[in-house]
């Protein structure tokens, strides 16, 4: 009897996902791309991007919203890679070296401390902080490397003798994780090792939620003052959430870059948080709630769209630029749209739960009336 109601509910719950699915399905035919091509692209891109998006989960659990500060992690990962290249550590060892460098822990700590000073405004603050740290990153990489910090490999330096080149060739670590265990499945190639790393992270996230620390994060996310009066170290817990997120983001960026094979030294991290956030939102997550399936669905949907729109643009409007433009537009659009939709949905939810209030119209008796006898019979 309440079929239409629950359908409506389903639609708003998954509005972003559904709209994306529709656009994507509509764009696939006009792109003229084969399904095989798209599937292979998706396998590659899932391996490349999923880790980064997973890094967003913990801060959401801790009530800190979407961690735009993850860019700090991306920059740490890049510094790790620069040094790996500098010391000529190639292959998986090079990636491990970059990952274990530890700058991300420090960056995460800074970010956590700053966000603790801006409770309730974490997202904006994280976004601004990323700008600020970006300045420092530029300063270190562009001026201090080779000038203050010795750089062994002159090949990665600018011709003036200090500062790192604009584009860094990651040849020695290129796709070393992906190729570590590459599986051929018919016409598809699957980077098994990369997926294993992602799977391990997913298991970690699931496991983490069951730990005491995970429960503390939930408590802090729900109500800081109550958690505080129960003795949960609120600030510390929030800092830990951000540190873990930042470290994971640095790993994510390393995985991303090893797949790309080269690195735009000064702006590879520019849109890291931006696309990760767009992906998780497309997957149906909100500022307050996100799950692993949200991440996977989001990465797939967003990237199918990225793959097909330039072609669709080319075919429909005779210009690939339209598709490119569309891609940017979609990224920002999704974020704005999901945030607005989230606010709207919160209101709508309240309205729905209210509809059950009028005892007479619907059969459902809200919990509040459970105690009473049968006084309402009229």
């Amino acid at each position, binding site marked *: 009897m309440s079929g239409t109601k629950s359908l409506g509910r389903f639609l708003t719950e998954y509005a972003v996902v559904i709209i994306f699915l529709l656009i994507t399905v509509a764009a696939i035919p006009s792109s003229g791309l084969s399904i095989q091509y798209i599937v292979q692209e998706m396998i590659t891109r899932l391996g490349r991007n999923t880790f980064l998006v997973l890094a967003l989960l913990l801060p959401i659990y801790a009530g800190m919203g979407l961690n735009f500060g993850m860019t700090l992690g991306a920059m740490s990962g890049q510094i790790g890679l620069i040094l790996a290249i500098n010391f000529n550590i190639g292959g998986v060892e090079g990636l491990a070296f970059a990952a274990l460098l530890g700058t991300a822990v420090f960056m995460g700590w800074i970010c956590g401390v700053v966000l603790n000073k801006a409770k309730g405004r974490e997202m904006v603050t994280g976004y601004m902080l990323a700008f600020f740290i970006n300045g420092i990153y530029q300063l270190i990489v562009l001026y201090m490397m080779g000038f203050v910090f010795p750089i062994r490999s002159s090949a990665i330096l600018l011709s003036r003798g200090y500062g790192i080149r604009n584009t860094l060739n990651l040849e020695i670590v290129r796709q070393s994780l992906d190729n570590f265990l590459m599986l051929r499945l018919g016409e598809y190639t699957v980077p098994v090792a990369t997926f294993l790393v992602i799977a391990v992270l997913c298991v970690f996230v699931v496991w983490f939620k069951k*730990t*005491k620390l995970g429960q503390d994060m939930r408590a802090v996310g729900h109500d800081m003052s109550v958690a505080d009066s129960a003795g949960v170290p609120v600030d510390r817990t929030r800092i830990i959430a951000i540190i873990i997120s930042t470290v994971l983001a640095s790993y994510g960026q390393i995985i991303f870059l090893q797949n790309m094979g080269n690195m735009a030294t000064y702006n590879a991290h520019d849109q890291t948080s931006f696309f990760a956030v767009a992906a998780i939102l497309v997957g149906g997550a909100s500022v307050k709630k996100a799950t692993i399936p949200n991440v996977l669905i989001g990465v797939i949907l967003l990237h199918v769209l990225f793959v097909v729109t330039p072609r669709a643009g080319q075919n429909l409007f005779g210009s690939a630029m339209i598709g490119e433009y569309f891609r940017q537009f979609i990224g920002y659009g999704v974020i704005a749209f999901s945030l607005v939709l989230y606010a709207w949905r919160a209101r709508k939810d309240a309205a729905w739960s209210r509809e059950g*209030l*009028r005892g007479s119209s619907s059969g459902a008796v809200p919990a*509040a009336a459970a105690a009473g006898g049968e006084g309402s019979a009229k």
Partner: protein
Amino acid sequence: MGQQGPLLSIDHISKEFYGNVVLNDVSFELKAGEILGLVGENGAGKTTLMHILFGMPVIADTGGFKGRICIDGQEVSFSSPFDALDAGIGMVHQEFSLIPGFTTTENIVLNRESMKPSILNDVFGDRMSILDRQDMKKRAEAAIEKLGVKLDPDMLVSEMPVGHKQFTEIAREITRSKTRILVLDEPTAVLAESEAEVLLKALRKLASLGIAIIFISHRLHEVTEVADRVVVLRDGIAIKDTPVAGVSVRDIASWMVGRSVATERVSEGEAREFGPEILSVEHLWVDMPGETVRDVSFSVRKGEILGFGGLAGQGKLGIPNGIMGLFQAGGVVRLHGKDVPLNEPRTALEIGMAFVSEDRRGVGLLLDESLKWNIAFTAMQIQGKYLKTILGGLFRIRDEAEMRKLTEEYIAMLDVKCTSPSQKAKELSGGNQQKICLAKAFAVKPDLLFVSEPTRGIDVGAKKLVLDTIHRYNRDYGTTIVMVSSELEELRSICDRIAIVDEGKIAGILPPTAELPEFGLLMSGLGANGSQEDLSA
């Protein structure tokens, strides 16, 4: 049980706030398994004494206290509530401190979850242990069992009625294996009589298990019912410490106030004439958690005092909250025949309605502001009162002198215990804050005033003052009043008509002179056809 000495002794405790002495050489003792009723007028110092016992930071911040607290004969000194918890003192504060999105179980064992060690413990410490949810639930169930109440361990707190929240909080205090002393500061103020009854039973059960309890309440019959001993504070002095056996409510009341008190109907036998209809409400619904209003229609005539009574959780509180726009509501509300837009609190105030909320801490006061600012605030914001123009109307500034005069007037009228009109609202005792809330609404001089639980947390002596003031406003200014209260006696003492709300609807409307059993019938949902016809006056 076989313990000889007292479990807790409060030894010559004195406390002053910046020269204002609020506790003066208070001493008493508490044995294991004993329930001590702590009573006193508003501002007598009960909460302050408990704050000292619990090591609350406000005490140290305001200069500490004199005297000693001993547990098992050992002097203790707590620098924070956590020390007090470690020493076995549990405290249930008036405001709930629960996480709404967590279940009963999760709240009961909050930050004391059962854990199974995991491999990462050695590296990262205890916080990487896995939660043992089964054991958590078992412990929660044990605590609920110990209380002897019915609570669903898997229910979300946000979906619970108030009473259950209160029990959840108590359950949390007693799951601490160490808890030997339990302090409850006005735990029954948010409960209806029937729920309070269950709570008292739970307290007796806890006491029989050897837990010592300090129970603070303004409902004196609860104290005589449950306590073994009663300590009466008057102006910071413990003037009486006596076993409860043979002591009556009336005795306690007179010890508290220092004179004898009685409540009688203020406006006996007076013929009343009312003006035209001022407020009409049709098919109102309000989404207020725990106080859902489903379908309520009534009308009020100018100059009338209409009362709403009923059991807790049935929706009486939702009515004013919905009409004033504080919770989502729907239906038709007309003031002076004009539609009132719902869900817009500011408009509700602007068109001449005012509201004294039952939630005195939540929406009532600006706690960090002075009393005069609090009292004049709404009138100033909404009606531009207490502002004077200077420089030919270029600026408008607050008229401090006028505000002060107004505040002094109310302080005298309601007998507010404070040091001056400039004192901060948060420095007042709970009951005195409630009086300020009332004064604030009176200062607006509204056409229609909603008062919700006006005497909650107010002592026996001051109750009459509050009711008298409401009554006087009604008579002197013709203010129409809608009063919501869980105390039937108080409704009967000043209202012209009393509507009983049951399951979100009006079960019936009775004159104040109706017999008690008639009210009882309506409240129990068995009322003889309280049909909608006789609802409009």
